[in-house]
């Protein structure tokens, strides 16, 4: 039973990381290397809010404020990235990739300058443990599961049931066709990057209290997220959800049964295998 809960918990971590990246990558076909740093900044913004506000308004409210500010800050960063990098460098994917890589280092350095290189810890807004059939789930993890579920459902509803969401999907499938329908593809791109980056920020806010936060936490998270969206199928947000679940279960079982040190290796091997057998990913549509 504990294993089932651990699977659920890890899946929600992975989903949380991968969701925003899958959206941006799927719609705009650009690799935002700074996505991991947006996640990191979300965690630091939350740290700052909790550290300054918790004594006055209490841990949970301070965390909530932190999450909202985190989403706003990272959303804004997404908008800046769009204006400053994606628009001027449109049609030069490599240049965009390099620029976002540079941005990721800049953001890392800024955070090191403000908060120092040493990892910090966000004091958990919710303490205590939920017991389910003899197994336990810490309340702070329930929070991540709820956040990941809410983000995915919210994104699903937004994309599938609203007009701006429909436009996003149209641009993802055929940007030129979308332009001819009178869709402002630039605005859609901007919106997508804001949403994707905002999700990274909220993810940082919810993951922060259960992991150590450091200026370098973005890299490993991004690496796993890449593996997930490649295995899930580039451009398919729902494939990413499925891949997150696959890795959540697989990695939990491996840690449980003594394969913990081979996690990075197996993830990379699975990715290479999927790329060679089905390059569009397990759930990807053929281009």
């Amino acid at each position: 039973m504990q294993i089932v809960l651990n699977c659920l918990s890890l899946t929600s971590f992975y989903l949380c990381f991968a969701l925003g990246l899958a959206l941006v990558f799927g719609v705009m076909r650009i690799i935002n290397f700074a996505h991991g740093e947006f996640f990191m900044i979300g965690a630091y913004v939350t740290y700052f809010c909790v550290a300054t506000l918790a004594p006055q308004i209490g841990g949970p409210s301070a965390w909530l404020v932190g999450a909202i500010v985190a989403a706003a800050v990272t959303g804004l960063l997404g908008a800046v990235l769009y204006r400053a990098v994606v628009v001027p460098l449109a049609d030069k994917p490599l240049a965009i990739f390099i620029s976002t890589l540079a941005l990721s280092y800049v953001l890392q350095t800024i955070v090191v300058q403000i908060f120092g290189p040493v990892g910090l810890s966000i004091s958990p807004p919710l303490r205590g443990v939920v017991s389910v059939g003899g197994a336990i789930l810490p309340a702070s993890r329930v929070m991540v599961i709820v956040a990941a579920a809410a983000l995915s459902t919210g994104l699903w509803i937004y994309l599938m049931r609203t007009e701006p969401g429909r436009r996003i999907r149209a641009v993802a499938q055929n940007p030129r066709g979308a332009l001819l329908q009178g869709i402002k593809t630039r605005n859609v791109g901007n919106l997508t990057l804001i949403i994707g980056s905002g999700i990274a920020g909220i993810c940082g806010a919810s993951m922060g209290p259960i992991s150590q936060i450091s200026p370098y936490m973005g890299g490993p998270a991004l690496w796993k997220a890449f593996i997930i969206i490649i295995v899930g199928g580039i451009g398919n947000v729902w494939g990413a959800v499925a891949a997150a679940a696959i890795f959540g279960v697989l990695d939990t079982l491996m840690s449980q049964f003594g394969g913990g040190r081979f996690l990075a290796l197996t993830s990379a091997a699975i990715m290479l295998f999927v790329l060679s057998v089905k390059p569009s990913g397990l759930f990807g549509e053929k281009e």
Partner: protein
Amino acid sequence: MDLMTRIIVAGVFACGLTGYASAQETINIGVVQPQAGECAQWGVPITRGVQIWAEEFNANGGIADATGKKHQIKVTTYDNNCYTAGDELTAFRRAILDDKVNFILQTFTPASRQAVAQIATENKVLTTSYGAGYLNAKYPFLIGSVTGSPGSYMFLVSHLLETRPDIKKVAIVTADHSFGQAALAYYKAGITPYAKRVEIVYSQPYDPASTSDMLGLATPIFASSPDLIVELGFTPGQQALFIEAMEQLGYKGLYGSEGWTMGLVTERIPAAQLAGRVFSAYVVDASEPSFSPRVSKFYKSYVEKYGQKEWSVLASVAYAAMTTVEAGIQKAAAPTGDAVRQALFTTDTVDQPLFGKSHWGGAEMYGANNWLLTPLPVYVTDDKGGVKVDAVVDVAKWWNANKDAALPVLAQGGQVSANK
């Protein structure tokens, strides 16, 4: 005085001053540690420990050698991004060839020590560390100043088993990198003499990347129902998350590691719940006042200078390592690497300023007695998140009594280089 005269007088005065300064030889000490990046969380406090040690002397006119002459100490830092051997050698080249340092404090990481052994020895730069890591008879200028890592892991776990006979099951939680592998071998070596009554129930190394899911890591450890968990490889924040996960799962046993950052732990788990259950032993923990008034004073000046939040036990570890060099300088006729080395090795013991009489050891493992076996204080947490001394382990005595059992385990774990 006309302007010309003033200039001449000023010039003469300036020359005189410089001349005076150079008559008093400055001791150049290099610290090779990560200064930026993720590993700086270890490197920065270590560097500060050395700097405060130097400042204490400099404030009193310098450190006196055996002739009574006082020397100012200049500490220069060299960055090694995260204890990689190649970076270590580059840093040593700059320190030794460009800046002419006399002494260097470096990491105990074996690969990094090996990489610089030759250049340090050829240039007679006394190179020390807070532990042995790697030593060799061919490289007499490579020494271990204090018991330190990784030896302390063995002495910590053996101390706990010896003093707490109700411990029957031990879980060893180490990262799957060279650090962690060394710790695993030393923990096993410390358990082996008690193999009749103690069982190792968990010893799977973990992938450092998987630490984002602490609950996943903790679940199988909890399932092995240990009475004692010894850890190495977590960052301070991860340690806190690990204890949190274990406590949430319902673990009631003991924890051991080289050090714990209790501030981070008590943010998650009440100190009272952990009182008497969390043990550490590295070299010395200056935040504990009773062991030595001198390190306690050092702790106060550190906290005054950098703040309570920036405190790390590693600062006191580096400070303690420098006090062995200090003992050598005070016994040497001149503050050169060569003279200090000779002064330290005139007898097989050193009157260590913090730990008292300590034996040179290490021959069985490294083929050279270049490791100073300083007595090891073991600390245990109290109900306020502070630490108190549980015992001071006479490590040389334990080693002599148990080396026959422990050595083969260390050899098996790849930690013995004496016969290679």
